[in-house]
């Protein structure tokens, strides 16, 4: 899904956040064009072609809502994901009304931003997004059937979201807290092992019944840190 030609426009006035997002996207092979205010951002969005726009709401010159309105008024259907520091529902709702495709509240995980941008691009291009294949595991988005080697299993909602999360960011270590936040959407207190239990269940469901199989299950436990889907 990620390839060298994926172009992202980032409109963000906070230089430190921008640097962090740019390096994050570049580390997975995206090309990022960064603009620091709404006016330049809009100009660039209208002149060049991008696969997706990451748009901060609080911007100088023109705020994110105005930029979004203009982009849609000019007939551009580029996927737009909004970044905001506010948890205001009103912001979120008016964002969607104006034509935003997704919404992420700061502080966010860069992996989550990348995953969401990937999903938006896949949805836009109409590519076969019904299955995700990574590191030998395939996951059907509609039937929630996961396959690894000869093992096949229907996953529960939680197991599905957890596996999808790992499959979309291969090679990234996910801490337990991060998984809790992204999969369970809640910050339970540290010390919980609900994540470990879920990972074990996944492993058990997908593990190859053939004991002679040499393959190693691609979801790796990093001791004391978290989990990672190994990138072959």
């Amino acid at each position, binding site marked *: 899904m990620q390839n060298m030609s994926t172009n992202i426009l980032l409109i963000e006035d906070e230089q430190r956040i921008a640097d962090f997002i740019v390096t994050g996207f570049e580390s997975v092979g995206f090309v990022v064009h960064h603009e620091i205010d709404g006016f330049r951002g809009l100009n660039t969005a209208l002149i060049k072609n991008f696969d997706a726009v990451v748009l901060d709401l609080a911007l100088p010159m023109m705020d994110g809502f105005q930029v979004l309105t203009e982009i849609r008024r000019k007939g551009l259907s580029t996927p737009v994901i909004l970044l905001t520091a506010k948890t*205001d529902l009103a912001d979120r709702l008016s964002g969607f009304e104006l034509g935003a495709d997704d919404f992420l509240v700061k502080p966010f995980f860069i992996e989550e931003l990348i995953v969401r941008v990937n999903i938006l691009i896949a949805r836009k291009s109409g590519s076969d997004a019904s299955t995700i294949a990574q590191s030998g595991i395939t996951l059907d988005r509609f039937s929630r059937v996961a396959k690894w080697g000869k093992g096949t299993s229907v996953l529960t909602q939680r197991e599905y979201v957890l596996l999808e999360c790992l499959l979309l960011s291969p090679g990234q270590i996910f801490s337990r807290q991060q998984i809790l936040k992204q999969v369970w959407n809640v910050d339970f207190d540290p010390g919980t092992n609900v994540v470990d239990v879920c990972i074990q269940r996944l492993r058990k469901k997908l593990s190859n019944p053939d004991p002679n199989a040499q393959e190693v299950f691609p979801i790796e436990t990093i*001791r004391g840190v978290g989990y990672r889907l190994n990138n072959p």
Partner: protein
Amino acid sequence: MAFSGVSRLLVANSALEPLHSHLSEVLARHAARELRAAPGPVNTEQIKGYLEKSVDELQPGEILVWADKDPAISGAAQALALALAAAAPVWTTLDGQSTGQPFEMADLKADTQDWRILRTPIPQGQLYVAVQKNVLTRSANGILQTRDGILRNLWPMLLVIIVLVTVVLTRAALKPVQTLQNAFSVVDIKNPTEHISPDHHYREFAGFISYFNSLIDRLRGSYARATRFSSDAAHELSTPLTIIRGYLHRLVNQSPDGSQLQIQLSLVAEEVERLISISNKLLMLSQADAGGVSLDMQPMKLNDVVGEMVDDLKAQHRELIFSVDMPSGITFVADQELIWQLTSNLFGNAVKYNRPQGQVKFKARLSDKSLVFSVSNTTHLSIAGLDERIFERFYRYRETDQQEFTQVAGSGLGLSLCREIVTAHGGTLTLNVENDSWVTLECTLPCRN
């Protein structure tokens, strides 16, 4: 009844004299009118006949009329005239204005009868009209009884009228207050320009209205400051936190797997997560303080939320016994994300402060008006001192004063947040402590359709 009693008392006390005088005047007026109607020689019989007609229930002989040098004088009148001449009473003048003819009046006792004598000059001398006093008394009593009757009949109606008038007056007096109250109740605190105009109200309220407007302005000022603080704080905190978390995460990824450095970095990352969680909670609380928790009200299924959560917890805490007592298909309207946070906080507490091999119970019931659900748990803590303070911010329950804070997990914000979530939904969250070491948090949410 009371009125007739009063009138009888008056009769007995002979306090009827004013009425007697009045009736005497009436009689004199009638006589005067008859004299005017028939000029020429006075016909005493005709006058007597006329006067007798003007008095009800009159017995013969109770009124006598004669004149000086009257050839047709009756025997009774003759006797009375003689008695009158003999007694020579003191004459008092009657009010001549009402009769148009000078009348004089005297009382006479003759043959055990009390008489009232009226006289007025006529061409051939004086015309005398004598009436027995008991006739006057009878008439006076009749008048009093009629008055009593009217009062008796009017009494309930009078009462009704008094009540009605009072109600109407009270309503009228309170109406401006009610109008003002209605005007107060629709003022939108979030609208910076809305005030109550004194023009539509009574001038007496002008001072009150301007005081209210100034209060509203001060309130709006605080509200705006609080709201701005929360959004500013959100912006200021979220940027560094995003960056710290992002780079920490990158460092964790880049350091050698399983290395001491990686583990330490991930511990730092855990603390950063805690910091982010606290700052999110504080932001929500400050939003709640500013009255600004906006709710995304959607129909949601309690069974799904709780079922999922309990499944997770069962997998996670095999040593605890979970029980759910809830009718199937509870659907209600609420902010899904907040209710999720609320229930997960409640369950989180129930697990965190439980004892080994303890229990967690969830109960829910739905009525027309409200949804009530509770999370109960056994605990290893001695809970005698557990009270409302657990809903205060940063409050940590300690069994003894000597116990260190560090021994207690959590930020001390969870239940405070829970209460704000429930309050934002218009409900209540209460703590029940039972002596056999059960702690229950019960949440009541009003049902909306």
